[in-house]
């Protein structure tokens, strides 16, 4: 609890001005103005080189038209939802499981923590290059490993060990497998980060809760269901919100691994914004898309705030 400093003499107006000016100038010029600028540019037709033309809400009506008529934009949004809806629960479940194991008092936990966290400190550009090679249908690690799994069977009329999966997918080149491949890589990348957050949440739960549950004769599952899970809800909600926002913003691995191919299977929202702005130079239309993304993310954030009030148990 912060004390009220009513006894202090005078106000700190001038000093505060000096302390705040550096951050204020930076945020105003490079955050506030660009946010307003994005809204402004979204009302233009502009390729940067020639003078802009004011078109009102034409870019927004164009977005609406594309959404309704089922053109590429609708596919882009569905792809983004697909990516987010699969990646987020999967990554959360795996990292929760990992953190529960890491939370056991066993030796060597620190080493595991380091290993799991390694992808989180590595540039996603490097990770994308590694995974692009791993997914290579002919000489990538994944199809080599799948090809090595052999079961007894018949080949050329003889009994032999034959591959369990004779025709493994072409992964990034296969319209059905490209997005799952991106999802697997993204889950792998995020496990360590989320597990560290979950671990911190787990360590914040008082021992007394567990002792009480044990005294009541609760089993491991009941302890998890009635103690760990509810008391972990602030962490879960935080990770969920951040992951959903991150899911809508996925870009770099798409840019590096598929560039939206096989089209339009891995075209996602931010990749679409990027290519509209910096390859097609449709700055107005791309800005309108960015404003739309802003609104989507804003509603996710507001949804989180509402959910925090209703659902989260802070253990009081």
């Amino acid at each position: 609890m912060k004390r009220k400093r009513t006894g202090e003499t005078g106000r700190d107006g001038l000093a505060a001005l000096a302390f705040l000016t550096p951050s204020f100038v930076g945020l105003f010029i490079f955050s506030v103005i660009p946010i307003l600028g994005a809204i402004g540019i979204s009302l233009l037709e502009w390729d940067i080189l020639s003078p802009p033309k004011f078109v009102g809400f034409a870019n927004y009506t164009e977005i609406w038209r594309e959404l309704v008529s089922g053109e590429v934009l609708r596919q882009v949004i569905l792809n983004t939802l697909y990516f987010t809806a699969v990646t987020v629960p999967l990554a959360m479940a795996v990292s929760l499981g990992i953190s529960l194991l890491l939370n056991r008092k066993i030796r060597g936990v620190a080493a595991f923590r380091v290993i799991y966290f390694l992808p989180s400190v590595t540039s996603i550009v490097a990770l994308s290059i590694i995974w692009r090679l791993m997914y290579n249908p002919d000489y990538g690690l994944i199809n080599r490993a799948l090809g090595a799994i052999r079961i007894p069977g018949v080949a050329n009329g003889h009994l032999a060990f034959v591959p369990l999966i004779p025709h493994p997918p072409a992964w990034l080149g296969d319209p059905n497998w490209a997005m799952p491949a991106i999802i697997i890589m993204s889950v792998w990348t995020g496990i360590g980060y989320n597990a560290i957050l979950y671990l911190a949440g787990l360590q914040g739960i008082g021992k007394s809760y567990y002792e009480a549950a044990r005294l009541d004769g609760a089993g491991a599952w009941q302890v998890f269901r009635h103690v760990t899970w509810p008391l972990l809800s602030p962490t879960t909600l935080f990770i969920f919100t951040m992951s959903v926002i991150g899911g809508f913003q996925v870009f770099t691995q798409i840019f590096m691994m598929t560039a939206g191919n096989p089209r339009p299977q891995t075209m996602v929202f931010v990749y679409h914004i990027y290519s509209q702005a910096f390859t097609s130079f449709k700055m107005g239309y791309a800005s309108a898309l960015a404003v739309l993304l802003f609104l989507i993310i804003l509603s996710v954030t507001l949804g989180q705030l509402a959910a925090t009030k209703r659902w989260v148990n802070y253990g009081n």
Partner: protein
Amino acid sequence: MKLRTRFGDLLAYLVLGAVGVSMLAPFAWMIVASLRGKAEFFRQVGALLPSGPHWDNYLSAWTTAPFGAFFLNSVFVAVTVTVGQLATSSLAAYAFARMRFRGRDALFIAYLSTMMAPAQVTLIPLFVMMVKLHWIDSYAALIVPSLASAYGCFLLRQFFMTIPGELEDAARIDGAGHWGIYHRIMLPLSKPALAAFGVIAFLGSWNSFVWPLIVINRPSMKTLPIGLQSLQGFYGDANWAVLMAGAVIAALPMVVLFLFAQRFFIEGITLTGLKE
């Protein structure tokens, strides 16, 4: 009970180990692949391990792309951005946590609200701004827009609020002003929070991709991520081994730093994750 715990531990090791292997395998594969001969690469069957370590792949990567310049650019940009964010954020955090002035809470909320906007929203206007300022292909474009961080202000303010006021009262009696309290009391007492936020800021700047991709074209100005990206653009699928060598070169500095300073990384993530 005892036996059950043992069994549980064993199971935990098995699962953690299996996941650990799957976490490490891509990295091991990157290193192995970076040492393979070019012809070896396209053989579909046969040994995974290279016939002999082809260190020349690293030389090829290094000479195809100026990795030395990429590295120095990354270091310079990340260090400057981190120091800048620490300075501007801690100053503002002090003002929000310890000063009394009109409109303080409203201004703080205004700071927070800038965090709501995703980076993609500001991307196009910022790019236009850089073009107008003639900052394309300059350090200024890489550094200046990132010198202030609303997130840093928020995080450090929350930490400053937890520091008890008694020490300041004593300092004030000794005649210290706000500046004295800020740099002689607040900053030294906040080292853990400053280190944690510093690591996050550094990591964010170091691995930043989209912004440098847009504002940098000249090879000598590139940072490691976009330098590596240009190597992929150069080789495509033609020479995987050199591409892997490039990935090793680009990934190595941060991995080494992480191994030596992992405590700060973990603390940084924990702090930034929890002080929501």
